[in-house]
């Protein structure tokens, strides 16, 4: 186990974590600000990936495809919020879970009717190779792009939430919604906007992961579970918590699948290590979540006092 391999695995974990952050950012705001459990958040990620694949196919440009998918999915999210989800805010969580679960099924089959079961989406040819970061460490160029875009968006989102008036309203809404209403903020419009931004971030994640993962119906459900884990670890409603939680989850997941296996092989007999390693790697993230909840039940960065 060389130091370079550890470094590469850390980069992999960071990259996976940043993509999880793009999903979790929208989810945590919707959950925190609107107190709404939106299971269909993963479906927006799927819609974004399909729109990107479709637009890249039409325009031939990866950048146009990603931007277009971001815009269209954001609009779609806003329409969805104002047309349907708004009426669910005052209902209890069970109704929200039921309605948004139905939405998953509807969107899955809707996408299938429009685009088919899957679409091809490849990385732009210019990014097909790998880049030498250090002697002996070549890293795929496309994954570096994901890292860069993820870091950039995280920074932009942080500035938006911490430094702008809109961000102040969002934070106010997350910590005390009723008080914010009383202060005369049009919280309905704010919610629609926040939901649109969350949907657009989902689309970026879907579009950027598209060349790495299968763009297929149902792709949102798998990743949604991890996004919820991130939200719970980071603290519901906290963007900073979502970022740190996502990077932690990404790194723990990746290192659990690589370094841990090597470590177990050092200390356990081979047949035990080969059985225990994969079993533990698949639950490492959840063990971490349980530990966080035991120590800090509100998550790492609680928003509500």
């Amino acid at each position, binding site marked *: 186990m060389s130091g370079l391999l550890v470094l590469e695995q850390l980069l*992999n974990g960071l990259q996976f974590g940043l993509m999880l952050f793009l999903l979790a950012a929208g989810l945590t705001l919707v959950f925190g600000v609107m107190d709404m459990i939106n299971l269909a958040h993963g479906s927006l990620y799927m819609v974004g990936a399909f729109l990107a694949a479709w637009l890249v196919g039409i325009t031939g440009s990866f950048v146009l495809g990603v931007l277009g998918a971001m815009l269209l999915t954001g609009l779609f999210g806003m329409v969805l919020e104002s047309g349907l989800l708004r009426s669910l805010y005052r209902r209890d969580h069970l109704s929200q879970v039921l309605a948004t679960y139905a939405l998953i099924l509807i969107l899955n089959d809707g996408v299938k009717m429009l685009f088919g079961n899957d679409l091809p989406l490849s990385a732009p040819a210019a990014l097909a190779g790998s880049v030498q970061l250090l002697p002996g460490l070549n890293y795929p160029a496309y994954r570096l792009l994901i890292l860069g875009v993820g870091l950039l968006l995280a920074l932009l989102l942080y500035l938006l939430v911490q430094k702008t008036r809109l961000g102040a309203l969002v934070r106010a809404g997350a910590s005390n919604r009723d008080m914010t209403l009383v202060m005369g903020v049009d919280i309905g419009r704010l919610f629609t906007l926040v939901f649109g931004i969350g949907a657009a971030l989902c689309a970026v994640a879907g579009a950027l992961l598209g060349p790495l993962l299968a763009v297929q119906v149902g792709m949102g459900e798998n990743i949604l579970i991890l996004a919820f884990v991130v939200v719970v670890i980071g603290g519901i409603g906290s963007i900073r918590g979502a970022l740190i939680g996502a990077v932690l989850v990404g790194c723990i997941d990746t290192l659990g699948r690589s370094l841990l296996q090597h470590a177990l092989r050092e200390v356990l007999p081979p047949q035990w290590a080969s059985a225990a390693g994969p079993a533990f790697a*698949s639950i490492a993230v959840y063990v971490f979540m349980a530990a966080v909840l035991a120590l800090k039940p509100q998550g790492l960065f609680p928003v509500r006092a």
Partner: protein
Amino acid sequence: MTQPTRIFKQSLATALATSCLAFAVPLAQAADKVKVGFVSTLSGPSSALGVDIRDGFLLAVKLNGGKLGGLPAEVLVSDDQFKPDVAKQLFEKNIKRDKVDFMTGVVFSNIMLAALPEALDNNTFYISPNAAPSSIAGKDCNPLFFAVSWPNDAYHEAAGQFANTRDLKSVYLVAPNYQAGKDSLAGFKRMYKGQVVGENYTKLGQLDYAAELAEIRAAKPQAVYIFLPGGMGINFIKQYVGAGLGKDTTLLLPGFSADQDVIKPVGEAMAGLFNTAHWSPDFSNPANQKFMAEFQKEYGRIPTLYASQGYDAALLINAAVRDTKGKLEDRAAVRKALQAAKFDSVRGPFKFNTNQYPIQNYYVRVVGNNPNGGGLINKSFGEPILRERGDAYVQDCKMKN
């Protein structure tokens, strides 16, 4: 599980029997139609396979003028929604209420194993167009169960043999951490004579394989073999090619990870990949030529191997009904006709082993440009990699007759 045996024994014994006629088969009458219960996964993310099996099956019936074995065919198609309990209920309905003569259709082993007792306990034949687990090939073999597809680990055995013939001295194996994953890699290792430098059992449904790819790069194997069904395989192949591993390492795939349903979402990156299967779209036998032409005419897409299996399942039932002259009540005669398998399979030579699993050839295929235009398609090597291969479990099958 004893009832079918009893009826078979008695139907053989009717000529001699003087007593205990309560279960005796009445003098078989020719039926006026054939009823087939077709239960498969037709909705949701995993539906592409079931849809292809259904389309292949119904195409064969249609080309036969809506008949099977000369009798009007009624195919009752229903969707198991990828749920074992739903499949079980649909089997029960088809068998007890609709009184079908044959059941078929299920894609996934776990779903089929949940529903299968409904058919076997009620003396109804099950013709498997896909799932063929090792348990039913061996100790749980059953006179009413016929696999017209391929044993679950056959493709992996063929891939292991291919690695031998290519003189690939070291290989790295990847599969999900569950029973089928371990069984599949065991199939590969049964044939492979080189060195296994790494075995990586990943999470079921894993999305990102960056960590595993880094491990593979560090292990420097000559070849990589994966058993990652569905979306997992698509993810792995895309990332494997994206990471540039394809340049010095050969990626070997089981046929179902390199068929049209994977080629479409992965795209150009599939070109040049080797995989093993019992069927290939370029087979030149007349049955396959007809199937390829008619399927593309009817549905406007290239069939997958699943479609070929659905088509063959219908041809097998057709032959059995034809050769028993429609006397479907006579289960022993129907079984004999099924065992004889007198049909022209799209895969070429085909016969049943004593456990009613296939003995057939397996081929290496390579993904390349479609000579008829329009993207990528599989092309087979002329010589089979495994010839007249059965399975490793047949000796455990004590078939009750």
